[in-house]
């Protein structure tokens, strides 16, 4: 195991062609973080349990800790570092930032990438669709609600729809004196 075979593969990572040599058994996660200089992709378990390491391969979400880098040879890889355009944040990044959908920020790169894939096929996703798409990604900080709303907000921005999360999301609910619900 110590003396291991080396492999060389070419990928298009965030739009840039790269040819990289790495030990043949290394995962895409390891190669991205340790060989490509892209540590934005995080790891939470390295066993495919938490979703933190999600990246896009040919536009589809993939757990980079479970994919050997060699299997991604010749494919198009997108990571969180490739989301922004120049210095402009992607609407998903803006929505996550402004809505407090990133707290510690460790699960955020994975969430953003899976959400990006969802929005490609579902430009107007329902909350249930977002929850289903992201259900393999764990977050210990937010309680998830803000992430769902941030994806909806970003979807609206991408559609040019002026919808934004309600005032409650920014200020909390307004307490009433009377018994309200059904």
């Amino acid at each position, binding site marked *: *195991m*110590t003396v291991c075979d080396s492999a060389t593969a070419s990928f298009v990572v965030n739009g840039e062609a790269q040819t990289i040599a790495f*030990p043949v058994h290394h995962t895409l996660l390891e190669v991205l973080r340790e060989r490509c200089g*892209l*540590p*934005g*992709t*995080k*790891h*939470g378990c*390295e*066993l495919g*349990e938490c979703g933190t390491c999600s990246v896009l391969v040919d536009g589809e979400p993939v757990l980079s800790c479970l994919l050997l880098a060699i299997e991604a040879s010749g494919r198009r890889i997108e990571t*969180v*570092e490739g*989301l922004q355009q120049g210095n402009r*944040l992607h609407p*998903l*990044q*803006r929505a996550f*930032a*402004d*809505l*407090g959908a*990133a*707290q*510690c*920020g*460790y*699960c*955020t790169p994975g969430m953003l990438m899976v959400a990006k894939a969802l929005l490609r096929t579902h430009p107007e996703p329902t909350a249930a669709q977002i*929850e*289903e798409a*992201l*259900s393999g*990604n*764990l*977050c*210990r*900080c*937010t*309680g*998830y*609600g*803000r992430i*769902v709303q941030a994806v909806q907000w970003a979807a609206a921005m991408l559609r040019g729809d002026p919808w934004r999360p309600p*005032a*409650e*999301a*920014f*200020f*909390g*609910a307004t*307490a*009433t*004196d*009377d*018994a*309200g*619900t059904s």
Partner: protein
Amino acid sequence: MNDRWDSRSADRAPPVDAENDVAAATVARQPGIAPRLIGQPFTRVDARAKVTGQAQFADDIALPRMTYLKLVRSTAAHARIRGIDLAAARRVPGVLGFLSGRDLPQPYGILPVSEDEHALALDTVRYVGDPIVAVAATSEEQAHEAALAVIIDYQPLTTIASVEQALDTPEPRIHQYGEQGNIHKTVSLAFGDTAAGFEAAECLLEDTFFYEGNTHLALEQHAAVAVPEDDERITVYSSTQTPHYVHRALAKVLGLPAARIRVIACTNGGGFGGKTDPFNHEIAVAKMALELGRPVKVTLSREEVFYCHRGRHPVLMHLRTGFRRDGTITAQHLRTALDGGAYGSYGVASTYYTGALPTTTYHLPAYRFEAVRAFTNKPPCGPKRGHGTPQPRYALEVHLDKAAHVLGIDPAELRLRNIASAGSVTTNWLQLGTIGLAKCIEAVVAGSGWRKRYGRLRHGRGLGLACGAYLCGAGLPIYWNHMPQSGVHIKLDRSGNVAVFCGEAEIGQGSDSVLAAIVAEILGIALADIRLCVADTDLTPVDLGSYSSRVTLMVGHAAVEAAERARAVIAKAVAAQLGVPAEQLVFAERRVFDARDPASGLPFADAVVAAEARYGTLVTAGSYTPPRAPGRYRGSGVGPSPTYSYTAAVIEVEVDPETGLFDVEHVWIAHDIGRAINPVLALGQIEGSVYMGLGEAMMEEQAFRRLPPRLSGALVHKMPSMLEYKSPSFQDMPEITSYLIESPDPQGPFGAKEVGQGPLLPIIPALANAVFDAVGVRIDQVPIQPDLLLKALAAAEKGREPRIGPNAFPDVDFGEPLRVPTPQQGGDGRALDDPRRQQAPGTRSADGTMSEREQALRKGHDAALTTP
């Protein structure tokens, strides 16, 4: 991006409570000027780094010539180490060096009273996962391979799996200290006349509850990188909530002057209390770097993180309470038994915390508290969000729900009748501040339609209510000293740049944003004008760290002081230049101007130039030390806080009586936050607390099992993986309605109180109470799982008690209680019959009362302390 919110702020009136002059003065730091930033939902200052992947976590650090460290961890739960065979490991290519216990013989531990840890085991291992050897190699894989090749020869010892077993098994002792046998600590306190209180009761209620342990499960695995500078200086980057305490532990164990060690807390990928102890790997990596003269990195695997733990103690609880017919409480007696795991960690403090805070919510005229913490051969327990209080809070709030049913009083009403008085000193000598609990109860009662719906929903549907309270920072530091608990430096220069330095550590809760916002508010500048430098022990003034919900209040006060001093210097210079009194100047809109003639003024950068020209290079400092607490008895160091936050929650649940499966449909939660510095971040803390509380209530378990005898019989973690350790996913979360109850507390900066931990507390009991309302069964143990519900429903069907939970509390000799007269009895905060009162001043007591500590300090001794 932050300025985008300025237009939206018009949606709401300026957040100054005009009804209340004291409150208004607390909030408005400039006469007549409402805050522009404080109270508004500004984008957090670290948001951009976190959504672009630029935020640097400890494992993201890569340095030239960096090497990698792995720990060899014990596979035996309790054993003597007979020998360590490194021969095979030495042959692994790339291996650079090894460390064992003899290289780091100095014991350490977060609390001075329980310094019982070694970075690497000296001769005994006490749980599966206890580190024994550290190995470094040029690659992580080689280090891993070498670690696997290390052979440890164990001589097995009896292993202890539970509190009961620890009480029955005094020998062999897991530690050679502690009270006796495997009892680490007992507490026995009596406040007021409980016998008379129970005598006066018209209704007596007794209950036993069990709360299983659970762990933090921060998504980031702990990591650290140590970089030696020369023979005697070293920098350690780490994922830690408490760089100051790591700094102290490193100095102690490495035997280096603290000034030569620099600890930098990286951005933390979640903490929740799991990164507040100094850890074995942090010490081993530093020692290895000094040995090798090269940078060394260690990153724990997820399995190792489960074994590091320091999470929620499993606690068995017994409650006995006397009530009058009107629901008011006459006396209460609480007993707790904590399964501490293999080391002290924060455990002495956790033990006291299980009994310290019930009095902050409800007036208990007489209160008795007994507790025991036992050592067991499992990963050490410590602080997790709510530290020591979620377990007794769950017990108390379910107990009150039962009382409400016995007494025929609405559970919300029962609580309203017992709420403690704002500004009072409790029976156990805690100084309370503002109390917004009644408003919280009213908000969730109204929001959930409680009065029309509670007790009236169809079978299977139910509502449950519970409350809670939490510290806004522990009143005492972990090691006794007279220095501030938080400090802030501000450097201003002619560019107009404002650099803010503080030892606080961002763990995702938004502490960087609170710090920046307070300085920006007071100096009237934008968040983008501020450069933060935090959590670097070489460069930043000490802050004790991100624990005990202390940061907003304590860092906030230090920031207010530093910023007001900076403003005063600038105002003097500008006043001289403009020829107006300094008091008349306003700092806002990145300008300093005359309140009576706003056109007359200077841009902020020019105002700094004026001050620098007149007074020289500009640096100001601010610091904060909490007020002295009134308690003077042994153990009174745990519980005091400058003020307390309050929370109430109602949960609606749908139970399927056929399967026991249930769904949480809706959570209404109201939190008395004093004043939200940033409502978006505050709401995020509330929602995150609801989430984490539901995880604990429904599924999370740090549970252990014995391997079969042929596999050593060791106690191993039942589920050290994220697949098996269940935590809620997107699809498990209900709708949450959060109310921020704002009524500024004069003890808080801008009136602010904590929000990071308190909102978790009512969630667990509210769920248990909702299950009862839905199907009429009591689940007196946590987590509440469908199989328990089915068992309870089956019991109900057979006419047996519809309850699942523990029935007995172990027989523990707590000894004679320390009797402390209450404030109502005219006490002075001291115990009546404390045998240690006879001790010579300055001696090192097991706990150390405040006065003992002070006396010890006067004599130049290092006094012991029990408090985080």
